[in-house]
């Protein structure tokens, strides 16, 4: 039973560039959430996707956008990268029909912006 998989594992970008991160949820899960974890900090909620729509969003600018595909996989896009966007980006999946289904996290994508 495959867990949550994220790609790539590491990424280095330059300020002003754009980046796309990818996530495949745990088998059977239909909801994908994205979190940003700056070095030494706790994860912060970016947004959540269900039925291919953004359902709720944290306090992140519009530079952060996403997408969910019919197979439930998801992408996180960040435009106009800033140095402060350097972080571990975590994808988590859950099952909508199970009340407060625990989130299963991937190992993350480490993004470095130079």
């Amino acid at each position, binding site marked *: 039973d495959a867990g949550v998989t994220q790609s790539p594992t590491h990424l280095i970008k330059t300020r002003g560039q754009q980046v796309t991160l990818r996530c495949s949820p745990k088998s059977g899960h239909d909801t994908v959430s994205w979190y940003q974890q700056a070095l030494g900090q*706790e*994860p*912060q909620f970016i947004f*959540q996707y*269900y039925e291919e729509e953004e359902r709720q969003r944290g306090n992140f600018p519009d530079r952060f956008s996403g997408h969910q595909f019919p197979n439930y996989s998801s992408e996180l896009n960040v435009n106009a990268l800033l140095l402060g966007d350097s972080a571990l980006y975590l994808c988590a999946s859950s099952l909508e029909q199970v*009340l407060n289904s625990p*989130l299963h996290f991937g*190992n*993350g994508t480490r993004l470095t912006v130079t």
Partner: protein
Amino acid sequence: AQSVTQPDIHITVSEGASLELRCNYSYGATPYLFWYVQSPGQGLQLLLKYFSGDTLVQGIKGFEAEFKRSQSSFNLRKPSVHWSDAAEYFCAVGFRRNKLVFGAGTILRVKS
């Protein structure tokens, strides 16, 4: 506003000693509470969760946590710590369709 407080940034315990990591939350409704563990450079692994019912919940790797509504606490415990338990531990409150709010984390060091 919902918040989670983990008052201890670092804790060091000897291998074989007992462990208690503290977590306090602020939330208006019945909380859904979680403990996650994170090894360096890795994702988060769920240790245990509390939704309702028995206030003492058992998790993986020998961990347990007790929900105390009167104290707004959900402390994590383990009777005997192993060197492999060294990691960072996050307490989290879940609400509104599985959105999690995390505490700042506690880094556990285990000395032999």
